[in-house]
């Protein structure tokens, strides 16, 4: 440091302090990074505009409620919407309690540096990174081939549970979404100011009473956000349900846990890749994609809005 000011050091420092070239570099880097940002915005706009433009004419009450006809070339997507809703409802019922409780454990009970806590966090992070197709394999190998076949054998049934069905697809998606719910719930719990807990405990409430009566009511929007995000992902993910329950076409709606179901995302995939006559399927295809896109984007936007409110409260609180 002593010879920073010495003449010998000056040339080396010059580029750091800046010369004529810097203005150029600054313009270049700002321009490049701005261009990258613009590219993202434009791409999103192109995708959304294309899908909206291709699909909006098809949307009607009939399209949303009637079953497909004419070898999937016309008719509606009613059963696919029904199947998707039934699937995500089952999934949410399974994932919210477990996810929320795991998050409560991590944030309210666990000591942050305990080995067990670290192991749970490690598991959550890894679960979030497992490819969705591997979840599909897991659903097939565990839920159907092990659990389902096991139930059938134990109860002496014909193939009932040991085949692809809506229950196993929902369970597969539930495990896929476990990290989503845990992370958002934990974030919500963190947004509850600690002095609320301290006040409750000081009044003689137990730990659980504090969580149940003081912390959870305030964290509820956050838990809801987790549920909504999970639903959005559950409606859009296709890979995990490919071989755990989604059906190409069903003449009936699923009424039992062991029934297969139609799904918006899978229906999109089928229409786009398995159709012998793409041009004839085009309107129905764009309509289906539009419904799926609007559904998932609305869910995500709702979650974002709730999240933003929670965050602003955290800042002011």
């Amino acid at each position, binding site marked *: 440091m002593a010879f920073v000011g010495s003449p010998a050091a000056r040339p080396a420092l010059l580029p*750091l*302090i*800046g010369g004529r070239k*810097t203005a150029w*570099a*600054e313009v270049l*880097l*700002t321009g490049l*990074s*701005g*261009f*990258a*940002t613009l590219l*993202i*915005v434009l791409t999103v*706009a192109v*995708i*959304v505009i*294309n*899908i909206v433009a291709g699909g909006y004419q098809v949307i009607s009450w009939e399209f949303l409620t009637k079953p497909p006809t004419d070898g999937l070339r016309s008719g509606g997507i009613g059963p696919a919407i029904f199947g998707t809703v039934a699937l995500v409802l089952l999934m949410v019922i399974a994932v919210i309690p477990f996810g929320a*409780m*795991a998050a409560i*454990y991590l944030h309210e*009970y666990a000591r942050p540096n305990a080995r067990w806590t670290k192991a749970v966090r490690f598991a*959550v992070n*890894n*679960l*979030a*990174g*497992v*490819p*969705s*197709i*591997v979840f*599909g*394999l*897991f659903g097939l*190998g*565990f839920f159907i081939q*092990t659990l389902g076949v096991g139930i059938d054998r134990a109860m002496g049934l014909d193939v009932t549970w040991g085949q692809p069905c809506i229950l196993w697809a929902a369970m597969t998606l539930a*495990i896929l979404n*476990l990290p989503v719910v845990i992370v958002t719930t934990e974030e919500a719990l963190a947004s509850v100011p600690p002095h609320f807990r301290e006040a409750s405990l000081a009044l003689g409430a*137990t730990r*659980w009473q504090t969580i149940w009566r003081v912390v959870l009511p305030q964290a509820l929007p956050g838990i809801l956000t987790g549920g909504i995000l999970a639903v*959005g992902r559950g409606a*859009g*993910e*296709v*890979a995990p349900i*490919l*071989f755990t329950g989604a059906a190409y076409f069903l003449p009936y709606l699923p009424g039992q846990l062991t029934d297969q179901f139609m799904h918006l*995302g899978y229906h*999109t*995939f089928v229409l*786009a890749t398995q159709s012998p006559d793409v041009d004839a399927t085009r309107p129905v295809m764009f309509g289906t994609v539009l419904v799926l*896109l609007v559904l*998932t*984007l609305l869910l*995500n936007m709702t979650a*974002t809005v709730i999240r933003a409110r929670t965050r602003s409260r955290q800042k002011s609180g």
Partner: protein
Amino acid sequence: MSIQSGERRYGASRSRWFLWRERLIETTIAVCSAMTILSVFLILLSIVREAIPIFFTAEDPASANFGGFFGQIVWQPVSDNPRYSLLPLILGTAKITVIAMSVAVPIGVLAALFSAEFAPRWVGEIVKPFVELLAGIPSVVMGFFALIILASIVQTLTGAVARLNALNAGLALGLAIIPVIYSVSEDALRAVPNNLREASLALGCNNWKTAVHAVLPAASSGIFASIVLGLGRAVGETMVVLMASGNAALVSWNPLDTTRTMSATIAAEMGEVVVGGDHYRILFLIGVILFGFTMILNILAGWYLSTMKRRLSGEV
């Protein structure tokens, strides 16, 4: 007095009940947290269990063996003389991933730099919903976009013979992983404390110098983590490549050839295999490889992130 004693008796039993209930609830909650660890183990266990017998009790040991998986170059699982070489699938995955990463890394990191360092606040407020929109687009919709719209554009621009090819799938996949790289990079850049920037500006550096010489080095671990996470996503992503890559298992480095990846192979073929057969087990084996690879990447990313955290808190 009678009221008081009654209350005391009530209080005594109540506190015992409370203690019990407290313990019960705490145990239940701890068990629920164990579910996460159990899930990871169950996933690994159930895919490994379906894959492992291929090495011991294959129906066709002549082709379904280690040499067959990595020694040959033909993936032809459904034939009288099945060939199970994983090389074309691994090569296809690598090819598409390289294309996707070379699109997503520059765009994602630069856009994150723009939002965190250069852009005025209101620009950031506009960009953010777009990135969230991109992140929220289901992969099957991205695959649809690549299949119906992007493929025609790519074919017109390159004059490729195959309409669905590695370039098309790689571009779409790149779009799909931009949000991961962008958001993790942006978090990393924003985590850099302001006193670093102020010190740099006070030394006379302009915004650009500050970003490149002060902020980027401090956030480098986080940016590496974003790249590694994006890589994991790209390797495992299924629907985009299944719909957009053309799915022929060729051994070729040409980005304009139709290409088949590991994930797409599982998705396309699992529906038609005999449960317990060689083909079935090999598809699970591919799943094990994908699981292992993404797990390593996740651990790496987690390590980079914790390094960055420690560095910024001044421990290293």
